[in-house]
């Protein structure tokens, strides 16, 4: 026997030794071990430090309930800045692999000698809720002294600080029956369900099926046979190392499968974890039950653990939990465990049971195995700090004590059925006195519980206790309920004394059940203790709600595919690659990326934009406008429909002509705009803003389908059907003329605000003669697949005319020089058409349109509304900051009365000065007035212009 490894037995592969380190010390174990079993086998009983008092702790359980033995596992990096460190892993759930590197947590400088343990000595000053009562004086010390100190104490392990080289997979799955839990109850349920022929998925969190049966050698054969039977069925999918963590509406269950963390890093390839999003016809929960610790003075000394953990170590892993082991039971299962340990070769010296009477066959069997029996007794004291060195027990817990030299103590406090997923799905629970726990009652979904989780498993009989009886008053004991959060029985008692009467308050006040195990071992004990303190039945105190996840789940798995480049689609036009190759600087607009400007020879944005602007004004520029939203509106009632949607009239628009459309929400505020064309009596080509495309289409569909379903008209998104190339500038016609066929470009034949169909570069085009620059301009629409070719052809044709590609920033400046509004920049969701100076776009004779009635509300036309105006700074070289606020009196005290703000502001190379637009209260009436823009440390003066048009107010450059 090396260390605590039993000479034989267990499910580990003794032919496959594995080396690993814990806190830098080398250990070895076997394939099939967990980190916990391998460490215990090496004689390591101290695993970590508790959260608040830094008390030394060993393992409590050998499953997902483990609150104490949390470690950090480092799987190595992949170069500088990349790392695979994971904190707070439960050692019993960490499968051992060759080279595993684990560290203990929440201790400094070492696990054995931890300075933080001073908290334990001072524990009397840190009862539940202590932080509410202190750290308030002097007031300034909270920020400077107390809070920083509290924050430094926070946390268990350390967060990763490097990027994660691993990636994560996700999938949906569907089945007729989903079974959660692969113990014998779950296996049987899956076999039965499979017989119906439907798809069955069986999920289990461990690396092999069997659940509790893995700790019972007598059942191994049955588990093996049935597992084989399952694997042979074509309609059953078995997912091991997979945790069903959440049960959502209509049998939607989330689960995470561990794919590589059980392998040595060198053997691991592919995704680290996979998220399963499962929709099941029926869900069968077979989650089993978790053993309850007993609450008594000293129950947290390393070496005191759940009886089931001692059994799992012995039977499943072939590890003795100690050289001399005692069992403190209030439940039959402890007796059975004692026999199992003995059979596995562990020296069990005594079974102590608080009950005066225990089933005679158990007593006889235990006595027969040479184990001392002490009925009607309870452990009253545990000796040792970093490990158990002995226990004292006494009749009734209060009588004359006797000592027992043991180095491990197993607690058999009864069983808590695992009803987490049941509760996620809003299934109701009922209290069961024999289990001393809540059991599933009425399901809200097509779901049932089986096995121990349903209370349908023979775990034996026992008591349900708050605390073991002991010689000391509760407030003098260190009897732990929530081990990780250091919640003691006396904390719960204190909470009750301070007026916390609901279990929710007790939980929040003491933090009982709020540790990383989410109360799997503490909830029921806490409830029983509160029940005692309040002298009320458990059922009157309530139960805290179980919420997903059942066990903690990696952010990475839950984000699935959406990592790095796959986080969100970035939409690019067909011309994007051309711009990218020419060094364009891009900006994100809604989901799109758009070229913002095309710097040349080290230009900054200012210089590039000035050059691009002048080129458009003097020669010609080209611009990728493909991101504009487009909707094709077709049907006999198309014009009628648009007439109802937009503020302006549409019925009289002739085919071949365009119109600017302004769209309001029903509350009267501007939501979108765009130039649209009538292609035929029953066919329109609408444009929307880039960011508004989806919103406008959805809004129009809503009105069409639910208000005006009698109209014969249909909407089709054509945003991505058409690439759009704006060719703008006095030479625009000359640039496109050689490429266009079938369209008479002469001004008389093809005037401003018209559309023609023909071909360009041999491909079909919808050619708009429109301008967002104030210059002669065309917007060339071609099927997207030809967009790049046509763009390059126009660029080539334009070389003779000095054509200049420009981006969104230049587009913004050019349109601002003309006073054209950008919806979303110069307007926000609070401006009416009149506010935006666009009363001209409202068809006053129309009886109705979307938003019209709202414009008649009292406040929508009240004096003092903010109106869009132009602003010219007194210093022509001063460019106001967009978003800067405007006041009438810069000398007033703070808080100042603000009149409005700057919406758009640029240096205009064309005008040789700055220009700006602003929304200002009663702005148009302030024409010519000086207003002030207070900036930090100085104030800028500017003059209001009721008109926002700074360039070519007659529009003469358009009509050429």
């Amino acid at each position, binding site marked *: 026997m090396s260390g605590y490894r039993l000479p034989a037995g267990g499910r580990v592969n003794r032919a496959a030794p594995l080396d690993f380190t814990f806190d830098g010390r080398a250990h070895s174990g076997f394939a099939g071990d967990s980190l916990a079993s391998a460490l215990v086998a090496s004689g390591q009983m101290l695993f970590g430090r508790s959260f608040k008092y830094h008390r030394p702790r060993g393992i409590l359980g050998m499953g997902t309930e483990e609150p104490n033995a949390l470690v950090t596992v480092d799987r190595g990096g992949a170069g500088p800045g990349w790392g695979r460190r994971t904190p707070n892993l439960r050692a019993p759930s960490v499968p051992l692999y060759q080279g595993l590197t684990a560290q203990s947590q929440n201790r400094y400088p070492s696990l054995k000698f931890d300075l933080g343990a001073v908290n334990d000595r001072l524990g009397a000053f840190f009862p539940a809720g202590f932080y509410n009562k202190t750290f308030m004086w002097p007031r300034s010390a909270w920020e400077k002294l107390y809070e920083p100190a509290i924050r430094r104490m926070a946390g268990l392990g350390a967060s990763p600080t490097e990027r994660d080289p691993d990636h994560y997979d996700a999938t949906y799955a569907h089945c007729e029956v989903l079974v959660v839990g692969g113990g014998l109850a779950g296996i049987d349920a899956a076999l039965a369900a499979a017989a119906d022929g439907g798809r069955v998925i069986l999920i289990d969190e461990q690396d092999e099926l069997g659940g509790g049966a893995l700790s019972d050698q007598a059942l191994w054969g049955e588990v093996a046979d049935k597992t084989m039977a399952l694997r042979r069925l074509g309609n059953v999918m078995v997912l091991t190392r997979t945790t069903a963590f959440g049960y959502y509406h209509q049998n939607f269950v989330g689960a995470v499968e561990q794919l590589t963390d059980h392998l040595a890093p060198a053997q691991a390839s592919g995704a680290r974890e996979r998220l399963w999003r499962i929709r099941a016809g029926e869900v069968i929960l077979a989650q089993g039950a978790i053993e309850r610790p007993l609450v008594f003075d000293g129950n947290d000394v390393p070496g005191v653990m759940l009886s089931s953990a001692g059994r799992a170590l012995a039977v499943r892993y072939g590890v003795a939990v100690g050289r001399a082991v005692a069992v403190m039971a209030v439940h039959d299962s402890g007796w059975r465990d004692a026999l199992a340990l003995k059979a596995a070769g562990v020296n069990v010296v005594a079974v102590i049971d608080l009950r005066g009477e225990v089933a005679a066959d158990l007593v006889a069997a235990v006595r027969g195995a040479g184990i001392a029996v002490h009925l009607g007794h309870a452990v009253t004291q545990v000796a040792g700090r970093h490990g158990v060195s002995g226990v004292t027990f006494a009749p009734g817990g209060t009588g004359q004590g006797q000592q027992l030299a043991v180095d491990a103590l197993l607690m058999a406090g009864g069983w808590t059925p695992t009803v987490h997923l049941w509760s996620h799905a809003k299934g109701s629970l009922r209290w069961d006195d024999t289990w001393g726990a809540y059991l599933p009652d009425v399901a809200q979904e097509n779901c049932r519980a089986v096995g121990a989780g349903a209370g349908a498993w023979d775990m034996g009989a026992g008591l349900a206790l708050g605390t073991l009886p002991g010689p000391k008053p509760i407030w003098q004991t260190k009897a732990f309920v929530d081990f990780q959060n250091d919640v003691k029985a006396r904390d719960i008692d204190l909470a009750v004394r301070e007026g916390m009467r609901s279990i929710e308050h007790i939980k929040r006040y003491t933090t009982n059940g709020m540790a990383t195990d989410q109360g799997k071992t503490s909830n029921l004990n806490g409830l029983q203790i509160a029940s005692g303190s309040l002298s009320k039945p458990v059922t009157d105190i309530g139960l805290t709600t179980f919420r997903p996840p059942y066990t903690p789940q990696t952010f990475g798995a839950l984000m699935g595919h959406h990592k790095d480049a796959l986080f969100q689609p970035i939409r690019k036009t067909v011309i994007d690659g051309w711009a990218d190759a020419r060094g364009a600087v891009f900006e994100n607009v809604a989901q799109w990326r758009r070229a913002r400007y095309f710097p040349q020879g080290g230009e900054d944005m200012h210089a590039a934009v000035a050059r691009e602007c002048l080129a458009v004004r003097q020669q010609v520029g080209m611009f990728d406008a493909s991101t504009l939203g487009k909707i094709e509106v077709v049907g006999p009632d198309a014009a009628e429909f648009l007439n109802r949607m937009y503020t302006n009239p549409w019925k009289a628009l002739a085919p071949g002509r365009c119109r600017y459309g302004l769209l309001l929400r029903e509350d009267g505020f501007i939501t979108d705009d765009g130039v649209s064309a009538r292609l035929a009596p029953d066919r329109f080509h609408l444009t929307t803003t880039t960011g508004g495309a989806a919103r406008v289409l959805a809004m129009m569909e809503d009105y069409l*389908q*639910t*208000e005006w379903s009698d109209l014969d008209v249909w909407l089709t998104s054509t945003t991505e059907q058409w690439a759009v190339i704006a060719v703008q500038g006095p030479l625009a016609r000359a640039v496109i003329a050689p490429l266009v066929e079938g369209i008479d470009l002469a001004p008389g034949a093809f005037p401003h605000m018209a559309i023609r169909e023909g071909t360009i570069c041999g491909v079909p085009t919808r050619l708009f003669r429109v301008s967002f620059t104030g210059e002669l301009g065309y917007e060339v629409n071609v099927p997207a697949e030809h967009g790049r070719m046509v763009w390059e052809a126009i660029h080539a044709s334009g070389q003779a005319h000095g054509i200049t590609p420009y981006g969104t920033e230049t587009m913004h400046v050019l349109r601002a020089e003309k006073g054209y509004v950008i919806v979303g920049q110069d307007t926000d969701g609070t401006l009416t058409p009149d506010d935006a100076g666009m009363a001209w776009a409202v068809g006053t004779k129309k009886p109705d349109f979307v938003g019209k*009635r709202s414009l008649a509300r009292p406040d929508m036309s009240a004096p003092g509304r903010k109106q869009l105006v132009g602003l010219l700074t007194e210093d022509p070289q001063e460019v106001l900051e967009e978003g800067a606020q405007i006041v009438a009196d810069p000398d007033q005290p703070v808080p100042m009365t603000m009149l409005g703000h700057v919406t758009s502001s640029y240096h205009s190379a064309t005008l040789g000065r700055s220009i700006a637009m602003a929304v200002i209260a009663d702005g148009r009436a302030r024409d010519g007035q000086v207003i002030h823009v207070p900036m930090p440390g100085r104030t800028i003066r500017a003059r209001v212009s009721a008109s926002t048009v700074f360039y070519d107010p007659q529009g003469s450059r358009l009509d050429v």
Partner: protein
Amino acid sequence: MLLIHCPYCEEDRPEVEFVYGGEAHIARPLDPATLSDEEWEHYLYIRRNPRGRHHERWRHTHGCGRFFNAVRDTVSDRFEQTYKAGEPRK
């Protein structure tokens, strides 16, 4: 993720294909100009927001594209039924 029966597709489909459309059976007044400010406020903003049985609109946006109505319990989130737009309130 809810599972929603689309009355047009005649199938249960996942919630992510649908867009919620707010309370159902609030018809846009035929002649808004004749409404008082209070009546117009009621149309625009006032909602029953019941705890329990709720008539609501959904659109199978990423499916058949149609708006339809549903009756759902807002406490359990369970759908009682769904029905096509234009059918009377259930």
